[in-house]
């Protein structure tokens, strides 16, 4: 007996590197205000990224993973999701999280070493059900299947979306989650931010398959590759995957091909393992310039607007930094206060011990 399975992966793209249209745009893209909004958010998170690195360099924040080059993936995914969907992020996901309600201040708090960064609301003011940033690789994918399983069980028209880097797709948890989502037809979308580098290991060494999207074949779900530097394509592919999940047709794997223009984190130096030619070439394909060029071509964006928006971004970022710095530190005993639903007696004793220690260390002042 022979079983034949054919899979073809074609990259979806609407705008080329210079912002020219390569195929008719989807109807929703006639709304140029929407595209301007995408652009503004991409510039905002890029401005934020630069500032966050500066804060780390000046000792005002801990190790930070830059999302430079991934703006179209993050803003595209975050903009396509419904407010009551659930997002299960990985660590390089600030842009998506911002679109989902976690502010720049929250991101600063998280990388600045405070758990308050993971306590945030949705854009509509409700307490968010989105997951916190996930640092262990790929474990978040199985959480998304669990969330999607709960949606399916309760008959809710909601979708769980998770993201992962190209390196993470080598991990068992990613494959286990994908497999389960296929077997159970879960309302789940997996987004691979394929930025070509897992710290120092290039995509070619990560996996022998020509595309990461085709990992979906083994799970029995559609796999789509999209130009991750083209936000029109990212948003469009995400919309379709979300709609498919919402209508009960199951999961989709989306591979967004981008490039990590930055170091892995502020603790990394990418010049040790990759050449400048490659990085320079990647800068020619980057997402922000591409959309700006398209908006210029449409006559809805110009240098004056650009300067004005960049100034506004600088102000917004500075306001977030000011808020972060003004918030100060969380009381040290908070490490006990959220541990269990209620404090056990032995823990209550340790909490008192720790407060006494903190008072001692602070010269008699707690907080």
């Amino acid at each position, binding site marked *: 007996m022979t079983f034949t399975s054919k899979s073809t992966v074609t990259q979806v793209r609407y705008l080329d590197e210079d912002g020219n249209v390569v195929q008719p745009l989807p109807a929703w893209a006639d709304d140029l205000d929407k595209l301007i909004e995408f652009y503004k958010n991409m510039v905002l998170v890029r401005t934020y990224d630069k500032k966050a690195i500066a804060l780390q360099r000046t000792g005002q924040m801990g190790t930070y993973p830059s999302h430079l080059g991934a703006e179209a993936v993050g803003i595209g995914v975050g903009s396509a999701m419904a407010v009551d969907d*659930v997002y*299960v992020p990985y660590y390089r996901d600030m842009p998506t999280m911002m679109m989902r309600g976690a502010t720049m201040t929250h991101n600063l708090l998280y990388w600045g070493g405070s*758990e*308050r960064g*993971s*306590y*945030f609301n949705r854009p509509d003011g409700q*307490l*968010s*059900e989105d*997951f*916190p940033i*996930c640092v*262990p690789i790929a*474990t978040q*994918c*199985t*959480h*998304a*299947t*669990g*969330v*999607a*399983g*709960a*949606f399916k*069980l309760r008959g809710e028209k909601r979708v*769980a979306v998770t993201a992962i880097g190209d390196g993470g797709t080598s991990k*068992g*948890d990613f494959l*286990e*989650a994908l*497999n*389960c989502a296929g*077997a159970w037809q879960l309302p789940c979308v997996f987004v691979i931010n394929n930025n070509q580098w897992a710290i120092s290991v290039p995509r070619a060494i990560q996996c022998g398959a020509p595309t990461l999207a085709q990992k979906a074949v083994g799970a029995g779900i559609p796999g789509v590759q999209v130009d991750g530097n083209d936000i029109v394509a990212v948003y469009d592919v995400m919309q379709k995957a979300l709609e498919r999940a919402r209508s009960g047709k199951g999961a989709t794997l989306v591979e967004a091909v981008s490039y990590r223009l930055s170091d892995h984190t502020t603790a990394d130096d990418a010049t040790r393992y990759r050449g400048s030619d490659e990085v320079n070439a990647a800068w020619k394909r980057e997402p922000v310039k591409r959309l700006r060029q398209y908006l210029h071509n449409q006559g809805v964006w110009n240098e004056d607007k650009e300067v004005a928006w960049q100034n506004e971004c600088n102000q917004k970022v500075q306001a977030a930094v000011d808020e972060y710095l003004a918030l100060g530190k969380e009381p040290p005993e*908070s*490490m006990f206060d*959220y*541990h*269990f*639903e209620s404090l*056990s*007696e*032995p*823990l209550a004793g340790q909490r008192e011990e720790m407060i006494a220690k903190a008072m001692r260390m602070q010269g008699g002042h707690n907080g």
Partner: protein
Amino acid sequence: MAKVCLIEAVNMALHHEMARDENVVCLGEDIGTNGGVFRATVGLKDKFGFKRVMDTPLAEGLIGGLSVGMASQGLRPVAEFQFQGFIFPAMEQIICQAARMRSRTRGRLTLPLVYRAPFGGFIHAPEHHSESVEALFAHVPGLRVVIPSSPARAYGLLLAAIRSNDPVMFFEPKRIYRTVKHEVEDNGVALPLDVAFILKPGTDITLVSWGASVNETLIAAEKLADEGISAEVIDLATIKPLDIDTILKSVRKTGRLCIVHEAAKSFGVGAEIAAQVSEQALWELKAPIGRVTGYDVTMPYYQNEKYYQIHPEDILLGVKKVMEQSA
């Protein structure tokens, strides 16, 4: 009132809680039609349907993470690992995710989940089916570790574990799954977590144990009584958080302590109990603390497992050594 064995009590508790709360779901390998390899989940799928009784793909890491995702949505997943020895692929999920979620989100996301696993040795099982590694989990902040020692304890503690809003590791001593039958009323009454139970009062020495070893400890206590030694027997039940107060109160009365556990000796739960008693009641002890435990070796295959196992005689010898060393 029905007489049931431990595994039947687990099944009874699952039936009760799934009927009481529609948020309770069960998941694991072979738990649906097959009712689990030990039949803990038998009948659940017929009664509650495959949507709430889920056969998962064969992937323990997935089971760990699925439970996290489901619990984050207010479901109360009760996940079965077929054996404690198979739980290691899920350790990252349990330690890095389940145990930390409430704390890292400042209470925004909480995980009311239970991870169940049969554990312990001496049923002539193959390799990796006999481990007793409760100390690994007890060491992780954010997890409760609960081990029943009898059918009644299994029923009441499992109800409590499922109703807990924090993650619980629920380890079932499979050696006594079917060997002991007790009358257990299916009344939905949970036993308290975080509390140790005094099974037999005594005045000369305190014996602390948990899980299957409680049975040998009780046998030893009876034999000691024949020899004029009055032993107080404590079933720890919740390993973490540790009910040190009950132990201290007993030790202050008897002046002597012997800890009995199946797990390897070093760096284990027994060591923790000994350390806490030393910290808080050293000068009230009449003798050094004794431990009767498994060895610090890989659990042998079944031809030699009886030499690893703790028998009542071993406990008698351990207790007598403590008695002889008394000041």
